[in-house]
């Protein structure tokens, strides 16, 4: 690892992550909000080739994803009441509670399929599984791309400083996420749009949020009613609960995206992490392990990200060689951030990389992390 870290206790700064708080106003005043971000130069012809859409890879992957869910769910159901159902539900749960995260993400960008209705259908299915209102979360993710890890602006920062380890552990099993998602669903279904939601969801879109919440609530009531009528947990093991028992993989991959890295910078090379992964995790995560590349060029579909990585790697910090390596640098950084919120891992750019906004790259306070 060639990361550097910054640990300056004398400048500890309390962060206010509220979307209507002091940091939100400061980000706008300082020009950090909706700023111009760094992009690696690529010839237009090459960029067009990388952005090119295709239905084939996503149809294949969606058939494998939903087909595997059908097989594992059916096997788990048939073996229900015996210990033999456990491995099938473990696999089903990861496909439901983790793989749907990346499908939600890619189809939300509209890049997974070439055909718009295919993106829309898979987006709705994946949003339901992840318990993410498809309207609210489309807009929150839009903001995440505009203001990536800008404190007070980005509604999708999953590890705030100081890190809350209890929250992370509970979310390994989706507990807090599902709790908040349920509250939001009930609140939205009652026609209530929160003040925070109003900061990033346009008024014209809010009725759609409410409609989706009502439909989902009806579906969950129907599943619970079926479980009561059958006197069995099985319906809930197939719908709803997998968001808990299958969430662990999406939490692990989600943490790696930005965890422990810089905040309030306008260069994705400094606040995002690319990680090389095993093929199973890459299938579940739909290549979002190339996270710097994705943030820099969000219109490149997931299946072209390995090619994009090769095209621009000379300009990026080295990708972590494994998930283990990412966690080995991240966990100690989280621990340090418990004591000092300003501590972060500073990515070192290769000699071939183009600098951008020197103040973010050449901080004189940087010291080797290890």
């Amino acid at each position, binding site marked *: 690892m060639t990361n550097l870290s910054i640990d300056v206790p004398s400048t500890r700064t309390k962060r206010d992550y509220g979307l209507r708080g002091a940091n939100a106003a400061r980000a706008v005043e300082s020009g950090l909000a909706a700023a111009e971000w760094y992009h690696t130069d690529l010839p237009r012809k090459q960029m*067009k080739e990388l*952005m090119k859409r295709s239905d084939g890879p996503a149809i294949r992957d969606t058939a494998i994803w939903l087909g595997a869910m059908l097989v594992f769910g059916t096997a788990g159901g048939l073996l229900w009441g015996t210990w033999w159902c456990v491995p099938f539900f473990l696999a089903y749960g990861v496909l439901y509670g983790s793989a749907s995260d990346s499908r939600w993400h890619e189809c939300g960008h509209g890049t997974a399929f070439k055909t718009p209705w295919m993106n829309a259908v898979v987006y709705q299915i994946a949003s339901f599984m992840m318990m993410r209102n498809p309207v609210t979360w489309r807009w929150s993710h839009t903001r995440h791309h505009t203001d990536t890890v800008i404190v007070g602006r980005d509604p999708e920062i999953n590890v705030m400083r100081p890190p809350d380890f209890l929250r992370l552990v509970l979310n390994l099993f989706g507990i807090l996420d599902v709790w908040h998602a349920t509250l939001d669903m009930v609140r939205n279904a009652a026609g209530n749009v929160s003040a925070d939601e109003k900061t990033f969801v346009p008024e*014209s879109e809010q009725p759609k949020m409410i409609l989706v919440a009502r439909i989902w609530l009806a579906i969950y009531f129907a599943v619970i009613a079926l479980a009561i009528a059958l006197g069995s947990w099985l319906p809930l093991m197939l719908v709803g609960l997998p968001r808990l028992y299958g969430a662990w993989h999406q939490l692990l991959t989600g943490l790696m995206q930005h965890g422990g890295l810089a905040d309030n910078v306008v260069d994705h090379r400094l606040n995002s992490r690319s990680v090389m992964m095993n093929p199973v995790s890459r299938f579940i995560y739909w290549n979002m392990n190339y996270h710097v590349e994705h943030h820099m060029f969000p219109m490149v579909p997931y299946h072209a990200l390995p090619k994009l990585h090769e095209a621009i790697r000379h300009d990026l910090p080295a990708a972590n060689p494994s998930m283990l390596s990412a966690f080995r640098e991240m966990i100690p950084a989280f621990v340090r951030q418990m004591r000092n919120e300003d501590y972060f891992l500073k990515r070192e750019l290769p000699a071939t990389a183009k600098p951008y906004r020197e103040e973010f790259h050449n901080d004189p306070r940087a010291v080797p992390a290890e």
Partner: protein
Amino acid sequence: MSNWVEACAADEVEEEDVIRFDHEGRTFAIFRSPEDEYFATDGLCTHERVHLADGLVMDDVIECPKHNGRFNYKTGRGKGAPICVDLKTYPVRVEGGRVLIDLG
């Protein structure tokens, strides 16, 4: 009132592609469709200030490079979230191998 301005050479724009044209402090996008017709719109996405010329042209759609917002560049009509405001379009004509747009 017409105000025709020369934007670029016709062959500067590849088929099913877009280029940026800046004029008097304003920025525009010049499109060439797969049918070899030319169109012009404002150059910045109506959602956020991002140059559409860095985006992807697919048939009659331009996709913004930042948030994947889509417009029909022939009509300017936005095609759903995050686009809430349509794109302004401008009349175009091609004369002697040059693309001209009417800024009105």
